[in-house]
């Protein structure tokens, strides 16, 4: 929103020094100033000039040669504007004058005729976009008068960030800002000039008002004014509108905008010929009354499809405007208009906001109504409009007296605060007189209560919130703190350390654990952490053959292929692999991030049990996973096995990191592990990972079918573990055991077993062998080379034996060996 300092000066004194300080002052205490622009100082020497003659240009069909009386002289100029005529008063920039940006005007020859200056358009004067013709000066003036003074071109325009005004309906007009500036600078705020109320009510109401939906319309004021015309606005008014970003149209329309920009109250003028009785009702109600169709044409010429909930202004049952948003084409002010019905109303903020969003039509009016306006402003604005219209068009008079229906008036709020509360909350001592002064200057009424014997020094106040602040913004005592503290100045509050009681600080352990996993993967395993998006790229999923039907969907995705939330990290990481493999051959990626599961079965999405989510169960539809991908160039078995082994080591390390546990690797069976069906899982080279019986995820070499999506010769191994599932793995608490006093002996045995037999199965069988000296069995290696019987492999295990009370004799060792070998023989297992 833009503010004209000239406009503000109507209500509060702003000298040059204050002008300089004002942007900072507003930023620090009221709202963020985004830009400051000094206007008009560069327009120098431009004067009023009367065109005395217009003749055709000898060398051009479109150009004209004009003679202009500028008081001191009559000068010749070449002009291309279609609207020049003899007798017209224009803003003339003679040679030596300057235009915005200090553009100097010089004599020039145009198609053989010398031009000694130019007649200016609005755009050339820096007051708007109009450039179709030269600006006609309609204000009283004589040739030679200074145009910069006449049009009040010298001004400073301050632009305020709208976002910082979200909660301040009172600041959507100049008068509100003038009030702020008066409070901040300690200067008086001048009264608004308005027509007396009696003048408005002096005539009978000819145009009655009825409100059918009193939930959406809080107040509706209508006043019929005739004796007017649609002349051009006075120059100074046009300048003000143009400087704050509003295009001047004609005086009546300009004045509705002017009052809105002054007070923050949107207004609308209907052509009186088109409205005889006002009815405020929803579009649904209008339809019920027989309105044909579902659309309404607004004054910008657009036919709009109306939601039933939209509030309409109707002439009888015939819509003429969308309440609070835009008038209709059927009732707008036209050049022939001589009488208007002036609307000044208060509409429900939410209703206006919803309709504006539904229509995709946010207007200056709707932006203001969305902030919750004070109903008292509706009448104030009507009185102000009448006052101003009569200043310019003295013949204006009322033909239909004030019709005023106010089902839901805004009432002032009373709040109680005391000096202790103010100082405690601000954290600094603010003198009571200052508190009273600040609130009073902002329009609050402050009554000091008789504190009586309550306590020494404490002063209690009853504070009345003015209605223009009471619609939403200031409703609680704490809201008054903001008013006091911001005007007092946050810079005047000395920072103070906090006084707290010492107590143990608890931490959510998984945050630390996830960080440690990242540390391990990046340091010990040389992996690089990346972040990918939380949604799938459906096109890529198609590429890699990943079909995920049962996923959560975003109702309003930015890009339609990104409308499903990821249930697996792998697809997006594979996409990252594809991006990187052009630059690197060997690399390892990982991500720790959330995956999202579909809502529990049987819960209708819209009736999802919010309470269950609130109780923290929401985590069950969101798990944190870690996914690692090892990428290399080459297709050898050895490379695949090494990568697979590396990921097993990583899984092992993660289990130790998370729960001080080891990892178990099991055959990944389609029935037990539904993930086995995922497109990237290798049909053979894969395993399920678990710890303490809790399923955690899997490790796999990438399915060879997917390899043609990647650079030639590349290969990958993938691990995906659910870190949230570690919640179910009990922490491995170490219990100290004395180290053995007598040496342990480790005996290696190479066993011939079927090539297809997993080590896990063999180990489980070997564990059935019991012997008093046996302490543990461990894996050494597997040999599948030459020299073995058909269909066999050689698995070497180490049997560790020992005693707690003596060193084993060689006899004991031999006896153990014999016992084990004969046990094996009984089971048909032979040694290599």
């Amino acid at each position: 929103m833009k503010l004209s300092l000239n406009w503000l000066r109507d209500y509060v004194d702003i000298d040059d020094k204050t002008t300089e300080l004002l942007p900072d002052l507003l930023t620090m205490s009221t709202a963020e100033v985004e830009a400051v622009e000094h206007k008009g100082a560069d327009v120098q020497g431009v004067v009023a000039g009367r065109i005395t003659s217009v003749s055709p240009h000898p060398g051009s069909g479109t150009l004209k040669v004009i003679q202009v009386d500028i008081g001191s002289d009559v000068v010749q100029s070449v002009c291309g504007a279609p609207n020049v005529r003899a007798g017209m008063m224009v803003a003339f920039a003679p040679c030596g004058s300057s235009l915005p940006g200090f553009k100097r005007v010089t004599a020039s020859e145009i198609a053989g005729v010398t031009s000694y200056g130019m007649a200016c358009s609005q755009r050339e004067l820096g007051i708007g976009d109009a450039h179709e013709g030269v600006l006609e000066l309609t204000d009283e003036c004589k040739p030679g008068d200074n145009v910069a003074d006449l049009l009040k071109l010298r001004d400073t325009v301050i632009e305020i960030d709208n976002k910082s005004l979200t909660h301040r309906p009172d600041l959507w007009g100049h008068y509100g800002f003038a009030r702020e500036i008066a409070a901040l600078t300690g200067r008086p705020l001048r009264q608004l000039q308005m027509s007396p109320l009696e003048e408005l009510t002096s005539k009978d109401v000819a145009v009655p008002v009825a409100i059918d939906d009193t939930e959406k319309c809080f107040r509706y004021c209508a006043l019929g004014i005739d004796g007017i015309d649609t002349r051009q606005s006075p120059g100074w008014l046009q300048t003000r509108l143009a400087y704050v970003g509003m295009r001047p149209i004609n005086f009546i329309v300009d004045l509705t905008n002017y009052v809105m920009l002054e007070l923050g109250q949107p207004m609308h003028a209907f052509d009186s010929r088109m409205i005889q009785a006002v009815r405020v009702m929803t579009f649904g109600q209008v339809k019920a009354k027989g309105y044909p169709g579902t659309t309404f044409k607004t004054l910008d010429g657009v036919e709009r499809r109306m939601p039933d909930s939209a509030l309409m202004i109707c002439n009888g049952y015939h819509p003429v405007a969308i309440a609070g948003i835009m008038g209709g084409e059927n009732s707008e002010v036209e050049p022939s208009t001589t009488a208007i019905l002036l609307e000044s109303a208060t509409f429900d903020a939410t209703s206006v906001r919803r309709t504006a969003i539904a229509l995709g039509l946010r207007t200056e009016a709707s932006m203001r109504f969305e902030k919750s306006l004070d109903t008292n402003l509706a009448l104030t604005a009507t009185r102000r409009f009448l006052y101003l219209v009569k200043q310019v068009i003295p013949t204006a008079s009322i033909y239909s007296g004030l019709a005023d229906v106010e089902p839901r008036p805004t009432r002032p709020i009373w709040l109680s605060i005391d000096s202790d509360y103010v100082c405690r909350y601000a954290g600094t001592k603010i003198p009571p007189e200052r508190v009273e002064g600040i609130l009073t200057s902002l329009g609050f009424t402050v009554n000091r209560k008789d504190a009586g014997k309550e306590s020494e020094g404490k002063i209690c106040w009853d504070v009345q919130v003015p209605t223009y602040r009471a619609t939403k913004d200031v409703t609680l005592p704490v809201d008054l703190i903001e008013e006091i503290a911001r005007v007092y100045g946050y810079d005047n509050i000395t920072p103070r350390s906090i006084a707290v009681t010492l107590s143990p600080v608890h931490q959510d352990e998984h945050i630390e654990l996830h960080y440690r996993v990242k540390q391990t993967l990046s340091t010990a395993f040389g992996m690089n952490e990346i972040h990918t998006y939380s949604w799938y790229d459906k096109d890529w999923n198609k590429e890699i053959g990943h079909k995920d039907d049962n996923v959560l969907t975003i109702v309003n995705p930015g890009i339609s292929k990104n409308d499903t939330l990821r249930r697996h990290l792998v697809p997006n990481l594979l996409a990252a692999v594809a991006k990187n493999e052009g630059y690197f051959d060997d690399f390892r990626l990982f991500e720790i991030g959330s995956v999202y599961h579909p809502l529990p079965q049987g819960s209708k999405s819209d009736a999802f049990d919010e309470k269950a989510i609130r109780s923290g169960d929401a985590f069950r539809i969101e798990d944190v996973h870690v996914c690692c991908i090892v990428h290399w160039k080459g297709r050898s078995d050895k490379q695949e096995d090494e990568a697979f082994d590396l990921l097993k080591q990583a899984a092992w390390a993660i289990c130790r990191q998370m729960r001080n546990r080891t990892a178990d690797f099991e055959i990944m069976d389609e029935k037990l592990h539904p993930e086995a069906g995922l497109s990237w899982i290798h049909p053979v080279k894969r395993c399920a990972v678990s710890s303490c019986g809790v399923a955690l995820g899997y490790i796999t070499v990438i399915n060879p079918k997917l390899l043609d999506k990647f650079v030639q010769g590349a290969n990958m191994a993938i691990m995906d573990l659910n870190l949230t599932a570690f919640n179910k793995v009990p922490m491995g608490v170490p219990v100290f055991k004395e180290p053995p006093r007598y040496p342990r002996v480790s005996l290696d045995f190479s066993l011939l077993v079927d090539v297809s037999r997993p080590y896990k199965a063999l180990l489980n069988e070997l564990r059935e062998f019991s012997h008093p000296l046996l302490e543990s069995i461990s894996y050494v290696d597997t040999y599948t080379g030459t020299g073995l019987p058909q269909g066999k492999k050689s698995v070497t295990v180490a049997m560790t034996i020992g005693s707690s009370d003596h060193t084993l004799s060689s006899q004991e060792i031999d006896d153990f060996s014999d016992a084990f070998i004969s046990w094996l023989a009984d089971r048909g297992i032979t040694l290599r």
Partner: protein
Amino acid sequence: MSILSSLVGESSLYREITASDLEVQQMTDQPHTNDLMQRLDELDHQAIAEIKSSQTDEELDQVRVKYLSKKGKVTAILRSLGSVDPEIRPQVGARANELRKKIEESIEQRKAEILQQKLERERSAFDPTVPPRRVPMGSLHPITIVRRELEDIFRGMGFTVVDGPELETDYYNFEALNTPSTHPARDMQDTYWINDTLLLRTQTSACQVRAMEKYGAPLRVIAPGRCFRNEDVDASHENTFFQLEGLLVDRNVSIANLIYVMKTMLSEVFRSDVTVRLRPGYFPFVEPGFELDIQCLICSGKGCPTCKKSGWVELVPCGMVHPNVLRYGGVDPEEFSGFAFGLGLTRLVMMKYGISDIRVLNSGDLRSLSQFGILDARSS
């Protein structure tokens, strides 16, 4: 299986490789004096030859065992001295001891030679300057690095680090933050909706009421995490970014306390004494609400392109917790007050590392993302 062995698992920590049984040599015959002297000469000859031909410490050790161990050949002669003619016993004994010493010394000498030869070979061949064969070039995401640093700072100040779901409810993300569905502030945030109830959280502020419900008052928490807003991605806008929410609730917490904590915290983050200023800002869940600016660290407030010539950089939206929000969290606003702040973690990362295009962070491009190493490297 005991816990300890389950910890070490099937590793080789306790595998003791015992030496194989030593060869036991039996010396049964009773030698004559001359024979003995002659035998000693033979042993001398053999042993020295074997030592000279030894190429490794292991071979030398075998020689030592062969001649000098308990069952060694020279030892056997020394042991048999008792049965030798007393007249020649000193002579034989002296010769045997002399030989024993000679062998020992020869072994030591040969050992030194072998080592010397090895060192000579290495001196010419060993290249200490080659890089390790597989350089562990792992890295953490810069968000992880800076997030961790902030967590450390706040833990040091007695804050609990919490997180919350990214898939949030309308209740925690908006309603409990004093932002009902009719509130115009909802326009300020473009939300990704899953259904009427569920959304992708737009702000880590969603953790405020969760934290109050879980920990009660007084409390000090920070909640770093991923947030989402439905907007078009370009060099300075992302739909997926990180924030770090802070919340402190206690008795008699004031605006003056907020300024102090923010100043202290930011001085830690930037490792220099920062100057801060508060100005009004509007967020429905705080009252009063502030925008906290820090004096531009690049120009020290004189005005430069980074601070758009203003001397100040807008950094942390914050404010005193709105009484309604405390009530939603089950905290009595008559007894407690507090403040909350939202640090733009992504923004901080970009400032810290001089990243001008936000898209780098979610690009997955290792050429960019592997540059940040694994820790928060401080320049001096």
